[in-house]
């Protein structure tokens, strides 16, 4: 009787937390997953992404019979296709079956999901504000300063250049780009980087306003901007084609990411592919978000995630976000002076990508200072320029360290 109970206990999931040397780490990760679920559901911080990420994290850290739902070691370097085909035995000779997330993760590892998400982003984005005021490109470029800053800090803290580049891209505030680059350069850091990137994107309303107030005067924040010129349909159609040709010719490594972004936008603007545009914006985006979110969350396996390295990544990621905002605001300040006070420098902070959250924050801060000030459409220009800027930065890092 006692033997049966003992057997029952030993085969239970609860016992794994105590018997497995890394079991306690899984326990902590489950608590972190609960905290993220709380933030997603109760606080509504980027719920569409944080919820699947948190649930993926929960599932991957629960003890599973037969070896688990995800095996990150099969994706280090080249994909272990034999293991995915059911031909894997552990050191003790036990047969290990592939889990659900092993298959879903192929979409991350082979850059399918980040590119499809970018296609959806392209289909949802109106580049009109950027086309009508092309100088917004400079604010989008300035906000990439956070990437360079974080790269140097990560190198100084002992990360190799590939890891540092992956950490630096958190400053681009662009989830798919961060996942795309990290899965290529430092896949072992993917869980920490994706969670840091999406968490900070959700925290933009808290991170950015103090920096904005620090780098602008009340007078600057009160500037009401003039309405930009209307953009013709032809310009909107030409824009994705020009961007694709120029960027891909300069940085071929970024072709899949930027190409998909611009293809999605062409679906939207061409006016002849409404069904494709609708699918990219809704059905495809939702399906890919579920698969991307859960499989990225699944990479946060306790034994690999709970390290000093992760805490460092989260710390550097926060600094990257702050310095990206600083970079965008400095360019905004310069443009304020060059335009003789016609451009509100707050819109520079929107250059950190994170569409449309960063633009909303810039608009909200501006409206606080002057209730009749509506900056949202003006801030969308630097915001979408930031998306292109962070993709370009990813391409350079990939060329340098890939």
């Amino acid at each position, binding site marked *: 009787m006692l033997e049966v109970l003992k057997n029952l206990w030993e085969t239970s999931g609860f016992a794994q937390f105590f018997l497995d040397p890394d079991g306690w780490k899984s326990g902590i990760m489950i608590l972190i997953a609960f905290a993220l679920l709380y933030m997603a559901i109760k606080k509504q911080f980027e719920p569409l992404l944080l919820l699947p990420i948190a649930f993926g994290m929960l599932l991957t850290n629960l003890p599973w019979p037969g070896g688990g739902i995800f095996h990150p070691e099969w994706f280090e370097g080249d994909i272990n296709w034999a293991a995915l085909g059911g031909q894997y035995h552990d050191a003790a000779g036990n047969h290990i079956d592939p889990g659900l997330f092993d298959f879903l993760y192929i979409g991350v590892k082979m850059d399918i999901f980040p590119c499809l998400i970018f296609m959806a982003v392209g289909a949802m984005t109106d580049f009109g504000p950027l086309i009508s005021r092309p100088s917004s490109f*400079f604010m989008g470029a300035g906000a990439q300063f956070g990437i360079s800053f974080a790269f140097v800090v990560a190198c100084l803290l002992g990360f190799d250049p590939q890891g540092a580049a992956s950490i630096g891209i958190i400053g681009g505030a662009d989830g798919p780009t961060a996942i795309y680059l990290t899965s290529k350069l430092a896949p072992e850091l993917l869980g920490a980087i994706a969670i840091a990137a999406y968490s900070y994107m959700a925290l933009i309303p808290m991170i950015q306003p103090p920096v904005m107030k620090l780098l602008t005067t009340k007078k600057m924040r009160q500037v009401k901007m003039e309405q930009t010129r209307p953009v013709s349909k032809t310009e909107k159609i030409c824009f994705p084609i020009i961007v694709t040709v120029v960027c891909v010719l300069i940085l071929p490594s970024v072709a899949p990411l930027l190409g998909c972004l611009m293809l999605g936008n062409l679906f939207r603007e061409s006016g002849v592919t409404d069904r494709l545009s609708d699918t990219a914006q809704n059905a495809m985006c939702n399906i890919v978000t579920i698969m991307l979110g859960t499989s990225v969350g699944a990479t946060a396996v306790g034994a690999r995630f709970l390290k000093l390295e992760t805490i460092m990544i989260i710390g550097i990621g926060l600094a990257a976000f702050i310095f990206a905002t600083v970079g965008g605001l400095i360019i905004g300040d310069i443009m304020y002076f060059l335009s003789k006070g016609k451009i509100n420098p707050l819109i520079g902070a929107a250059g950190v990508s994170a569409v449309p959250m960063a633009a909303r924050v810039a608009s909200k801060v501006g409206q606080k200072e002057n209730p009749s000030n509506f900056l949202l459409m003006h801030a969308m220009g630097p915001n979408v320029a930031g998306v292109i800027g962070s993709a*370009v930065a990813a391409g350079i890092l990939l060329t340098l360290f890939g």
Partner: protein
Amino acid sequence: MNPVIQLTVERGQHLTTAEMFMNAGIVILVVFGVLLLMYILISISGKIIQAITSIGSKKEKKAEPTPAAAPAAPAAAAPVSGEEFSSGALKLKNCDEKTAAMIMAIVADDTGIPLNELVFKSIKLVEKK
């Protein structure tokens, strides 16, 4: 991969402080360079497209036949040209024209959509019960 700027840094290999700053500088410089190029191209293409569109619209105006009855009814000419830009009739219910104009301006400012691109079908006063 571009062999000109490839540094071939192996995994685990660390950079010197000078290399760190050099790489960080390259990233920000190239980002600025590419986006500057985009700025130039988008500005130029915008101006070209605008010029072509305005030439096209001028040609269309020239091609339109002049009304034969013009000398007989010169006063009617103005409303006809105004109708070409109409976005349809706007129904006002318990709302004067001045208030309607103000509402339309606020909506245009709030949404950032130029007034000539917005279509208002009706504006009516909703009284609180």
